[in-house]
Structure formats: structure tokens, C-alpha cells
């Protein structure tokens, strides 16, 4: 199985899922879907030993060779870790969803198609080495996330959340595309590896900072960093398996992946270091403080995810300082990259299990409102145990993996002290302080989440359902993750050597040649001289006190001014663009076909006259004309008389027939000038359109909507001017094109090749189907769209009429 095929495998399987869902109704569709991530985990698993040894794999498929765009699957430590996360968590989530989503009530066909689409897109993001294909997969994850959030599309909140996430992430994606294009211009290549090789020269380029900022906006929107995080809480309207998968374990980490992947290119700039570290810490702080305020279980987890993503982001930022220091200090800062990847993995385990537990609580009690919940411990003991393991890990309590990475994080913020190039003298202390405060709040909401749900008083009267333990199958996935949480604590270095070191080697290629060079060991105990130890103890103490008094200080949040919130800003912006677009288009879309014809003809006159005038093309040469025959004069007279009839008649019927006469006389001209194809077409078109006119006769408005008077005169004058202008322009062009032959006529070419190359005898038809077949293809597409539009309009009108009558009957 090739690497590129592996990326597309989920999409390929997605094609048969709807059929399986329809035809095999007694087996839950999820069981078939489960095979895909299962196979992929095994497939990527076989690469682990080689990647550990420092090898990388690459496979290329030329997608659009003429533009130098190709799909390149590049597997190194970083992309392998992400690929395993995507497929591994994906497997657990699919298993969980089999029990979460009812096979009778839910549209499983849709659900699994979107989920598999996402899986392919995400694998593509983390394995692409080509910037354009990376962007392509990146937007595909936004689209599949949109579809999954809006899965219960009948709910208003789902649609709102889906649109919001799409607006913000696609905005970021477009910014990122801009950054990619700049990178491509600077480095003259779209390959990430080649750009990394040029990093030292790129940094001096004028556009470098622009590329950096634009790419970071993409990463920040996707990874829900401040101020773009507002889409993530609203994305919680998605089914819980989706929240656990996309919005905590994988998709929101795409931004982190991007930052990690581009570190070797951008880290040479200090803007990068401070932007990534600063925004990350701010997000960590902001998210943790607001998580405490939430009352919805999934909202707590959403804000907690925002905050944890900020934590990892800031670690990646600190890690990139290693590019600015020399000697022993390098390892001080590469340690932060190591901690970042470690926490990223840990977060996927504990947050994944917590989301699944939130889903179980929702499923078994019918509510996620933490004010209604309580006392579930004795009713749902297994869920409680898993939730406790997850929350304690998130809070950073020993015996769980979160403790290890949280201490490493505190250590990393403290190490900033040693980076004193930029007169950081005393205010470096701000970073550990913010980190510490955020960790205190993390501790508080972790306890709040688990104890307010499972301890306290059981309030059955508030619950829509009678609470009971979840079925075994639903508990399997969170239990596996919870076991991992504990296992990682006891054998951290096994995971460190297998997954994290190869990934760190990919982020820090200057410091490490092969994964084995990364010399860190994860330890739970650092001795009494470790500052992080005392910080952790402080967190436990203050956090516990704050948790105990939570009821007293949570009301303080009510004092936050609601008017300046980011959500308000987003709503205002959406409203403004909606109204603005509406006002703009209704200013010229009057609904009257006469106005549209005026736009078209006026544009025709102005554009043609302008071009002819600029090119000085008004030439009149009356030599070399053919003699005029008697019957040509006769037909012209008929033509003119019928045209005048249209103008002066008061009856529409007469006008229609006169128009038909004009058409038929023109067809006669075609016959005289030996254009049988045109004549044939014109004759039939006239017949059909006269019939159509007669059919539509009943619906047409009055010929002239104005009574006699000033308005009527202006209306007629307008029409006269437009008609005159078009007539004069067309005549002038006809004369000018006869008078000067600037280019050789293409007809000679047609005459020569029509039989020998195109295998036909009728040039007109060969032009239609062969020489200019593309035109015809688009024309028939437009015709189809137009006919569908007419069907839509008339059906809607009929439905409206029926509706009106119903109202009248009442």
C-alpha cells in the first residue's frame, strides 16, 4: 500500500458507505467504517521502527504538472505522530459513535461520509510537503468540520455554529494561502523541505515577515487561539464523537502542526518567537479563566481545549528560541519543543476521554447542564472513574500523564530567564506568572467538571431521563484512553523514544540529526531544588481553596461588559456584510427585465465605442462591394416594414407576429448568402420562439407601464437612445470590419483541416462540436441552468398562489 493511496483510502471507502447504510440495515454502518482506521493504524505502525532510526519516506504524485503542483506525501517523525493520532483516535471515536448514534434514527450515511472525508483531509494536511496541496487539504478539513458541526442541521444552533467555524477557519485559510504564495515567490519552490534548506537566506527577504504573519493567522484560526477561538465553543453543537475527534484531538491541532512544521523556516525571526509564545500564553490564560464560568459540560471542555492549545502553542514558541542561542542553551530551549509534543499527545488522551464521558452523561441523563447534574457517582461508577482520571491528568496531579507535561511546561517558562538578548531583564517573570495563574484555573475547572457532575446531590427531578450507567461498548473507547493516561505516566520514556523524539528531531533539524540525538528523559521527580515543584504545590493549594469557594466568586463574571465581547464583534460583522451585500445588489437588481436589458446594451455600446475609439478603428471603405440584387432590396423593405410595425403597433399579438416576420426575413438573407446551417437554425428558432411567446402571452405585463405624459416620454426616449446606439454601433463595426482586414481570416484554416484532421465535412457543425467544443459544452450547461431556474421560479410562484388561496379560504 502506497503512502498516497493510504491518504485517500478513507475517501475511497466513503463512496460505498451510503450504499452500505441503505442496503445493510441490520448492521450498524460504523462497524464497516471501523475497518478503515484500524487498517491505517496498523499500516502507519509498521513505519515506527524506521522513523525512530531517523529515516524519512517520500512519495510523489504529479497532480497538475503544468503548474508544478503535486501531491507529496512526506513521512517523518512529526507527520507520523500526527498520522497515528488521526487514525488511532479516529478508530476509538468510530467505535464510540457506533453506540452513541442510533442506527434507526440517525442519518449514518451522511455522518460517516463526512467523518471519512475529514480523515483523508487531515492525513493530507500532516503529510503534504507541497504548500498548495497542504492548503487544499487544509480547507477540506474546514469543509468537513462544517458538515459535521451542522450534522443535526435542523437545529438553528448547529447551523450557526457550523457557519461560524467555517467563516473563521476559511478566513484564516485564505490568509495562510497568501503566506504560502509569498513563500513560494521568495524561495521559488513550494516544497517545505526545500524552503527549510533556504531558511537562512529567506529571513532577510522584505516579504518574510508578511509570510510569517499570514501563515500564523492560518494556524491561529485553526487552533482556536485568541482572538479567533470564538468558533470552538459554538462548534460544540456537533455530535459528541465529532467534538472528541475534530475539536479536541485532531483538527484543532492542525494549527499546532503547522507551527511545528514551519518552525525551521520562521524561527530565525524574533517576531515568530514572541508572537507564538505570547498569543499561546494569552490563549492559555483566557481560556482557563472562562472555562470556570461555563455551565454546559461540553462548553467547559471547549474552553479548556482552547486553553490547552494555547499552552502547547506557547511551548512551541519557547522551543523556537533555540534558533537564537548557542552552546548549552540550545538544549534548554529544544526541551520546550519536546514538552510541546509530549503535552500534545497527552492532551489527545485525556481530553478525548473527557469528551466521550461528557457525551455519555448527555446520552444517559439527557442534559449537559452542570447545574442540573450531580450525584452520578454511584449510578455511573465506571464513567466516574474514567472522568476522574481524565480530569486529574488535566489538572496536573501525579500518577497521570498531565502531571509530567505540566511540570515540563512550567520548567520551560522558567527557562526564559536565560534568554536575555532583548533586554528581557525583569519582565521575563511575567511568562511564568501568567502560566502559573492559568494552571491554577485549569486545576479549578478540572475539579469543577468532575465533582459537580458526579458528586453532590442527585437531582432526578431536573433530568429528562433516569440516569444509569452507559452500555459497555460506549465505555470501551474512553476506558482505553484513560488506561493510556496512566500507562504514559509510568513508562513515559517508552513513548518519548518512540513518538516524541522523532517528532522533535523534525522541528529542530539544526540541533538534532537523528531522533537518537534528542537526549531528554522524562522524570516525575526532579528533586527539592526544582522551582517547578514548588509552583505545582502552590497550584494545588490555591486551586483547592478557589475550588472550595467557587460559589462565592463565580458571580463576579457577571460584571464582564457584554458589549465589547468578541462574539458581539463577530455577529456585528456578519450582520453588516449580510445587509451591505443585500443593499448593494438590490440597488441594481430591480426585478424588471427592461432595466437589465438597459445595463447590457448600454455596456455593449460604451465598451465597443470606447475600444473602437482608442484603437482608431472607425474606417469606412466603400470600394470592393458586391452588386445589390433586386430581391435583396425587396427583402430589406419587408424587414424594415415589419420592424416599424413592431414599433407603432398597440397590440402585443401584432408585435409578436411582426417580430416573427423579422426573424424569417433574416433567415431568407442567410439563404441568399449561402449559409444553410444558419438559415435552418434561424427558421426553427423563430418557430419555436413564436410558439413560446404565444404561451407566455398571458403572463406578460402591459406593453408600456406609463400613461401618456412626462414619464411616458422619458421612457420612450430612453428606449430610443439605447436602440439607436446599438444599431449605430453594430453598423459601424460591420462597415469597419469590411473596410480593413487586419488579420487573416480563420476560415482558411478551417477549410484546410476540417476533413483531414477533424474528419467532418460541415465546418459550422465541426466548429460547434470540435474546434470550439468547449464553448458548446458551457452553452448547454448554461441552458440547463436557465431551464432549472425557470422551473424553480414558476413552481415557487404556483406554490405561492396555492398558499394565498388557502389563506383566503380561511
Amino acid at each position: 500500500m502506497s503512502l498516497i493511496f493510504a491518504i485517500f483510502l478513507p475517501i475511497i471507502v466513503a463512496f460505498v458507505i451510503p450504499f452500505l447504510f441503505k442496503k445493510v440495515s441490520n448492521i450498524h454502518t460504523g462497524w464497516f467504517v471501523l475497518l478503515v482506521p484500524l487498517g491505517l493504524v496498523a499500516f502507519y505502525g509498521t513505519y515506527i521502527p524506521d522513523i525512530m532510526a531517523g529515516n524519512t519516506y517520500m512519495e510523489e504524485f504529479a497532480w497538475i504538472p503544468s503548474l508544478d503542483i503535486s501531491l507529496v506525501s512526506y513521512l517523518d517523525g512529526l507527520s507520523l505522530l500526527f498520522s497515528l493520532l488521526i487514525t488511532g483516535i479516529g478508530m476509538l471515536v468510530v467505535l464510540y459513535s457506533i453506540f452513541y448514534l442510533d442506527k434507526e434514527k440517525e442519518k449514518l450515511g451522511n455522518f460517516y461520509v463526512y467523518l471519512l472525508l475529514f480523515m483523508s483531509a487531515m492525513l493530507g494536511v500532516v503529510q503534504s510537503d507541497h504548500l498548495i496541496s497542504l492548503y487544499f487539504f487544509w480547507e477540506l478539513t474546514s469543509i468537513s468540520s462544517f458538515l459535521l458541526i451542522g450534522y443535526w442541521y435542523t437545529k438553528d444552533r448547529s447551523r450557526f455554529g457550523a457557519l461560524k467555524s467555517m467563516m473563521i477557519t476559511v478566513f484564516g485559510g485564505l490568509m495562510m494561502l497568501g503566506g504560502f504564495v509569498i513563500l513560494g515567490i521568495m524561495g521559488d519552490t513550494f516544497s517545505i523541505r526545500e524552503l527549510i534548506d533556504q531558511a537562512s537566506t529567506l529571513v532577510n527577504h522584505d516579504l518574510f515577515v508578511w509570510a510569517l504573519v499570514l501563515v500564523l493567522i492560518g494556524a491561529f484560526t485553526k487552533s482556536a487561539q485568541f482572538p479567533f477561538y470564538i468558533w470552538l465553543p459554538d462548534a460544540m453543537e456537533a455530535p459528541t464523537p465529532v467534538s472528541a475527534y475534530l475539536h479536541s484531538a485532531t483538527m484543532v491541532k492542525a494549527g499546532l502542526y503547522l507551527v511545528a512544521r514551519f518552525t525551521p523556516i520562521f524561527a530565525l525571526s524574533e517576531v515568530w518567537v514572541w508572537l507564538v509564545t505570547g498569543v499561546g500564553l494569552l490563549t492559555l490564560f483566557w481560556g482557563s479563566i472562562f472555562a470556570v464560568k461555563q455551565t454546559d459540560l461540553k462548553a467547559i471542555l471547549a474552553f479548556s481545549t482552547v486553553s490547552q492549545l494555547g499552552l502547547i502553542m506557547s511551548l512551541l514558541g519557547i522551543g523556537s528560541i533555540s534558533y537564537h542561542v548557542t552552546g548549552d542553551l540550545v538544549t534548554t530551549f529544544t526541551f520546550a519543543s519536546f514538552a510541546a509534543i509530549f503535552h500534545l499527545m497527552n492532551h489527545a488522551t485525556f481530553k478525548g476521554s473527557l469528551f466521550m464521558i461528557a457525551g455519555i452523561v448527555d446520552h444517559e441523563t439527557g442534559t449537559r447542564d452542570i447545574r442540573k447534574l450531580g450525584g452520578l457517582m454511584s449510578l455511573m461508577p465506571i464513567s466516574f472513574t474514567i472522568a476522574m482520571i481524565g480530569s486529574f491528568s488535566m489538572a496536573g496531579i501525579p500518577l497521570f500523564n498531565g502531571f509530567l507535561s505540566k511540570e515540563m511546561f512550567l520548567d520551560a517558562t522558567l527557562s526564559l530567564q536565560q534568554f536575555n538578548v532583548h533586554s528581557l531583564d525583569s519582565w521575563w517573570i511575567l511568562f511564568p506568572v501568567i502560566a502559573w495563574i492559568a494552571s491554577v484555573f485549569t486545576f479549578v475547572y478540572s475539579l469543577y467538571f468532575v465533582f459537580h457532575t458526579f458528586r453532590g446531590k442527585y437531582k432526578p427531578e431536573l433530568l429528562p431521563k433516569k440516569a444509569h450507567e452507559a452500555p459497555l461498548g460506549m465505555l470501551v473507547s474512553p476506558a482505553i484512553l484513560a488506561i493510556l493516561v496512566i500507562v504514559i505516566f509510568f513508562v513515559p520514556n517508552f513513548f518519548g523514544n518512540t513518538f516524541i523524539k522523532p517528532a522533535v528531531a523534525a522541528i529542530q533539524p539544526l540541533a538534532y540529526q537523528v531522533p537518537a540525538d534528542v537526549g531528554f528523559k522524562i522524570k516525575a521527580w526532579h528533586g527539592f531544588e526544582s522551582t517547578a515543584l514548588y509552583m505545582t504545590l502552590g497550584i494545588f493549594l490555591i486551586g483547592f481553596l478557589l475550588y472550595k469557594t467557587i460559589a462565592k466568586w463565580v458571580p463576579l463574571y457577571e460584571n464582564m461588559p457584554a458589549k465589547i465581547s468578541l462574539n458581539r464583534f463577530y455577529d456585528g460583522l456578519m450582520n453588516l456584510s449580510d445587509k451591505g451585500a443585500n443593499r448593494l445588489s438590490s440597488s441594481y437588481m430591480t426585478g424588471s427585465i427592461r432595466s437589465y436589458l438597459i445595463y447590457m446594451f448600454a455596456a455593449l455600446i460604451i465598451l465597443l465605442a470606447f475600444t473602437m475609439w482608442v484603437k482608431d478603428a472607425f474606417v469606412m471603405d466603400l470600394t470592393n462591394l458586391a452588386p445589390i440584387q433586386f430581391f435583396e432590396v425587396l427583402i430589406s423593405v419587408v424587414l424594415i416594414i415589419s420592424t416599424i410595425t413592431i414599433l407603432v403597433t398597440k397590440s402585443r399579438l401584432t408585435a409578436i407576429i411582426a417580430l416573427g416576420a423579422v426573424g424569417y426575413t433574416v433567415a431568407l438573407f442567410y439563404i441568399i448568402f449561402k449559409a444553410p446551417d444558419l438559415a435552418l437554425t434561424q427558421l426553427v428558432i423563430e418557430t419555436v420562439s413564436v410558439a413560446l411567446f404565444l404561451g407566455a402571452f398571458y403572463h406578460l405585463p402591459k406593453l408600456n407601464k406609463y400613461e401618456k405624459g412626462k414619464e411616458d416620454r422619458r421612457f420612450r426616449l430612453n428606449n430610443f437612445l439605447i436602440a439607436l446606439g446599438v444599431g449605430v454601433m453594430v453598423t459601424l463595426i460591420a462597415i469597419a470590419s469590411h473596410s480593413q482586414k487586419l488579420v487573416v481570416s480563420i476560415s482558411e484554416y478551417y477549410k484546410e483541416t476540417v476533413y483531414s484532421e477533424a474528419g467532418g465535412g460541415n465546418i459550422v457543425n465541426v466548429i460547434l462540436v470540435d474546434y470550439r467544443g468547449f464553448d458548446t459544452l458551457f452553452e448547454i450547461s448554461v441552458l440547463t441552468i436557465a431551464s432549472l431556474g425557470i422551473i424553480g421560479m414558476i413552481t415557487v410562484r404556483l406554490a405561492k398562489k396555492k398558499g394565498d388561496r388557502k389563506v383566503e379560504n380561511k
Partner: protein
Amino acid sequence: MKTNDLIIQTTTKLVFFIIFLFSIHIFFAGHYTPGGGFVGGLVMSSGIVLLMLAFDLKTVQDMLPINYTLITAIGLLIALFTAAGSIFFNVPFFTHVYDYFNLPLLGETSIHTAMFFDTGVYLVVVGVTMNIIQMIGGDE
């Protein structure tokens, strides 16, 4: 309004088939002599329009229970796949090929992929015009 359209109805019954055959004829002849899918489709439509004038919309719909939207879609797909088919042979989009075959009854005949494309055009034209006329004519 009820009128006795005996003459036009009787004539139409006969003429319709002539128009129908003629439309097929100019469709096939199109590659060498005047005609083609576009005109052929229009002629076909005008035949059906004649039927509608002679009888009425309802009767014609019962006579020819055709879903014109479906016809349009099939035509567009045929055209699109003919055009796209070439990419599977590693030649640019829309490359036509033709060859001569010895068919029974017809003798040596040239078969051209452009003809399949033209079939698509024919069906789209019939589908679109009939759809519009039926829609507008049927709307009261």
C-alpha cells in the same frame, strides 16, 4: 374555448413523424451537410410544439410522458463524459477521435466521438426547450 381542430389534428398526426424523422436525419447528416445536434434538437422540439398546438398540453403529456429535466441531465452528462473521456487515454480534455467501420446495411461508415457529444447537445436542446415551453404553457 373549444374549437374543432380536425384538419390540423389529422395533419399533425402525419406530419409529426415526418418532422421526427427529419430531425434524426439532420442530426446524423450534420457532420457532412447542414444540420447537427443543435438544429436537430430544435426541429424535434418544434414537432412536439406542433403537437401541443394541435391537441393540448395535457393530452401531449399523456401521449409522451417524458421527464424533460431527466432528458436534459442525461444529455449534459453524455456531453461531459465524452469530453472528459479523453483524459483517460492521456490526451488533453476534449480530444476527439474517429475511424471508419464497416457496418451491416450502412456499409463503410465513419464513427466520430463528436457524434456522441452532439447527441448530448441534441438531448439538452430538446429537454431545455420543452421544459420551458411546458412550464410556461402549463402555468395559469
